[in-house]
């Protein structure tokens, strides 16, 4: 309990014991309320926006059931994302597919007339009230991972559909330069088309334009092994600005800048350079409509806080005026009334400002990689073993991250899809 609250409660208790005069009672009560509530409007600092019981501290036991249930519903996609990535990296394809399909069923639709989205847009609820679907780079990765699994199941057309949806999601960037600018999504779309005996040249051309000086390998439809690789640690969301109303992204550059797969005792080396960077994608998304809404909330919070301060100062001045008039033997009731009224308005303003929550939603898919890579090659059916090496900026092998890889190439008729990740979970 804060000091102002304790003092105001003491004042109220004293008045219960000592019957006050009419004027002084209202004056003291008003001042007590002012003491209790002044300074309520404050910004409590950045929040990671994590699930209850984690970054925000332990969940309250008394409302745990209702809160967890409601939190689980609006965080469901977030849990799906994280679990899917872990399942894919640990070889649990069935679980990864189930989680991703559950997430895509929501993120692939058009969310309208949603009560929790409406609350998120309102003054007194944070953005994290809305059902989480993720920023564009997160939704892109959901489709990207699902596309890999479709291809592994021998459905390159459904894989292509996923890559197309992912590229469409990325077309929502504020700056036209960054719209649909993933290299791999276009490249994979074209490769899938070639595998389906369709024309992938347009997709290849788009991918090459995005890749710039990096030359993409031409499509070789007879290559039966597809290697999807990822490394580094993905972007983190933070809430910046005076009231945490600005969503920003921070990416710690990973030591791993490239990778390679060494097969046949060094006879065959498959380079796995980085084609896409999720930190770059997150940072170049640009402004959101929600940023505008949060900005309005922050302005309101600031304005009512300022107005509350003005009203409270006015209340103090009016109170002083009333006392002066009483000492001079004149009627100070009007000034008393004004003091109380301004005090109440000041309290309302401070309370409204304190209740306004312009905080940006920082819930995040926190086990994403930083960099994405891809390669294809032709291998005979059967067991193969090799070494996956991660390279630093200068091309030196990061020995402690090297690991052995074994996989089985399927018989002719279906591509073998290999997924390699520096992240373990």
């Amino acid at each position, binding site marked *: 309990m804060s000091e102002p609250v304790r003092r105001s409660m003491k004042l109220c208790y004293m008045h219960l014991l000592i019957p006050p005069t009419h004027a002084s009672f209202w004056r003291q009560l008003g001042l007590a309320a002012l003491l209790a509530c002044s300074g309520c409007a404050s910004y409590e600092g950045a929040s990671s926006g994590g699930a209850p019981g984690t970054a925000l501290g332990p969940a309250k036991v008394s409302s745990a059931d209702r809160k967890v249930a409601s939190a689980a519903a609006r965080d469901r996609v977030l849990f799906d994302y994280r679990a899917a990535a872990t399942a894919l990296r640990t070889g649990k394809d069935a679980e990864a597919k189930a989680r991703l399909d559950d997430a*895509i069923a929501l993120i*692939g*639709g*058009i*969310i*309208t*007339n*949603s009560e929790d*989205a*409406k609350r*998120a*847009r*309102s*003054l007194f609820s944070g*953005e994290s009230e*809305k059902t989480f679907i993720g920023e564009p780079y997160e939704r892109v990765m959901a489709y990207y991972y*699902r*596309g890999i699994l*479709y291809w592994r199941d021998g*459905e390159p*057309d*459904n*894989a*292509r*559909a996923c890559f*197309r*949806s992912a590229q*469409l999601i990325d077309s*929502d960037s504020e700056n036209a330069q960054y719209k649909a600018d993933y290299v791999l999504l276009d490249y994979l779309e074209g490769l899938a088309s070639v595998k*389906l005996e*369709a024309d992938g040249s347009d997709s290849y051309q788009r991918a090459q334009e995005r890749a710039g000086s990096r030359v993409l390998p031409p499509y070789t439809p007879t290559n039966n092994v597809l290697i999807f690789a990822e490394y580094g640690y993905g972007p983190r969301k933070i809430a910046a600005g005076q009231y945490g109303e600005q969503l920003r992204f921070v990416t710690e550059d990973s030591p791993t800048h490239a990778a390679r797969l060494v097969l046949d005792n060094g006879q065959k080396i498959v380079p796995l350079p980085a084609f896409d960077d999720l930190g770059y994608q997150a940072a170049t998304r640009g402004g*959101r*409509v*929600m940023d*505008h*809404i*949060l900005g*309005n*909330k922050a*302005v*309101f919070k600031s*304005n*009512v806080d*300022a*107005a*509350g301060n*003005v*009203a409270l100062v*006015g209340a103090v001045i*009016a109170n002083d*005026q009333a006392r002066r008039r009483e000492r001079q033997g004149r009627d100070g009731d*009007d*000034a008393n009334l*004004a003091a109380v*009224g*301004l005090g109440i*308005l000041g309290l*309302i*303003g401070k309370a*409204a400002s304190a209740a306004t929550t312009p905080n940006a939603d920082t819930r995040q898919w926190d086990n994403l990689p930083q960099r994405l890579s891809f390669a294809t090659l032709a291998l005979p059916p059967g067991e193969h073993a090799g070494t996956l090496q991660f390279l630093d900026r200068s091309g030196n092998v990061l020995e402690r991250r090297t690991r052995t890889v074994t996989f089985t190439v399927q018989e002719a008729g279906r591509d073998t899809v290999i997924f390699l990740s520096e992240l373990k979970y």
Partner: protein
Amino acid sequence: MNTFTRSLTAGFVAIPALFFAGCATTQGVKSPAGVTVTEMKPDERGFVVGTGVESQDLVAVTDKMARSIVGIPEIARATAKPYIVLDPVVNNTRFPINKDIFLTRIRTQLNSKAMGRVSFLDREMMKTLERERALKQSGQVTATANPNVVEFRGADYFLTGKLDGMTTRTTAGTSDYVLYSFRLTDARTSEIVWEDMAEIKKQGLEDAAYR
């Protein structure tokens, strides 16, 4: 009421006005609650946004295809019951879908509506059937007929389809057009003896909280 009190009274009016200035968090945002998805005629110009392939689309499309196939001369006036093999549908949209469900529903509709005028061959079961025949031929299991006689039927026609899509996305929303086309191909001549299509266009705009 003295001047000071009048000033304070004016404050009672002005301060609430300051409180509520900027209440509208969505000021300047168009359609903050989004726009409910509507189904458009394919040739009708829309204003945005799209949705994917849904169950009502599947039902409408497959019903139309089944009705259309049943009426063609190769089925309606065939002297011998034709045998049809389903070839997987190709998805050329941006929506990952269960492709098998389209042909499955067309097949069930045809079996229901054609009243025995057409038969389907279950090529998905071929490996299982060949294994069973091998067991019968080797004598490991019994057979009610001579297992050495080739009785697997050949296809008279192949039924397949393709889903093509076009997507437009702007700040006003997303629009998706999907063209469902199916065809029946003569297995002997490669002639397309039947073809039909359905097209559906949808658009919508998501809640401002997600833009």
